């Protein structure tokens, strides 16, 4: 279950998945307000107020997007806590729903696609019916790279 590094990568890979399985792909955006951070912060504040804990309003909500194809079992995931990405991601899902192809998504936000994404484009272009399984493997291979990156990002936050 991959977490993709950029929203662009997520939308492009989702479009590819949709190309391979046009009839049965679901998108599952999930908005979460995380209660644990708040509870912890308030608790520790009431017990012993420390200057570190009193920093104002740490963002606690996040948006996780999943695209799932039940036929192949492929799940693509992307998580963000940046508000400015919400609109673009939701419109992106709309484009996917309307059956936009990879190319039109790529054009909509140039320069954001990472090297990983370009690599993934190549094998899918000659999409024959037999290809999806292969595409799936490729995606999973790539997934691990994405995971590693994601972890790095988490540390920085």
């Amino acid at each position, binding site marked *: 279950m991959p977490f993709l590094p950029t929203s662009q990568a997520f939308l492009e890979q989702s479009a590819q998945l949709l190309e391979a399985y046009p*009839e*049965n*792909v*679901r*998108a*599952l*955006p*999930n*908005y*979460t*307000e995380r*209660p644990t951070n*708040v509870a912890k912060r308030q608790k520790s504040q009431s017990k012993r107020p420390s200057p570190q804990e009193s920093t104002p309003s740490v*963002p*606690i*909500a*996040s*948006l996780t997007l999943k695209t799932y194809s039940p036929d192949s079992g492929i799940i693509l995931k992307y998580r*963000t*806590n*940046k*508000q*400015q990405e*919400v*609109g673009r991601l*939701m*419109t992106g*899902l*709309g*484009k996917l*729903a*309307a*059956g936009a192809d990879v190319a039109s998504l790529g054009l909509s936000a140039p320069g954001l696609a990472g090297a990983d994404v370009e690599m993934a484009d190549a094998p899918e272009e000659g999409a024959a019916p037999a290809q999806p399984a292969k595409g799936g493997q490729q995606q999973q291979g790539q997934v691990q790279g994405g995971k590693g990156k994601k972890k790095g990002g988490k540390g920085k936050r």
Partner: protein
Amino acid sequence: MAPHIGTEEFFEALTNLLSTTTQKAHGSVSLTQKPLVDPVTNGPPSILIRASDGNTSAPRVKKDGKIVKGSNPKVTRVKFSTVVPADGIEAFYTRYAEVCKAGMTGMKKRDRKRKAKGKGGAKAAKA
């Protein structure tokens, strides 16, 4: 399952759901989209959109009328859905994105500090 509601009602309900979730600073909003492919006409599919607060432990009534107690009888589950016809997808998603943007207020705003840092990094890379 409750019948699908119209798009207008859907947006109202979604706005409510998002605002209550943000006010509580607790919980989540799950959305689902899935194409409804018609095997007979084989035209462009309409899209089924579902929204829920994910409280699956709440009591519920099954299809056959049986009542399932649920592991937490105190909570209630919010759940609604709508079907968007193929020709209305674009208009729907424009509103959908707006409603989501307006509702998901708990997230990180654009950070000026980080932007400045990024610029510095780019300059450093050029030099």
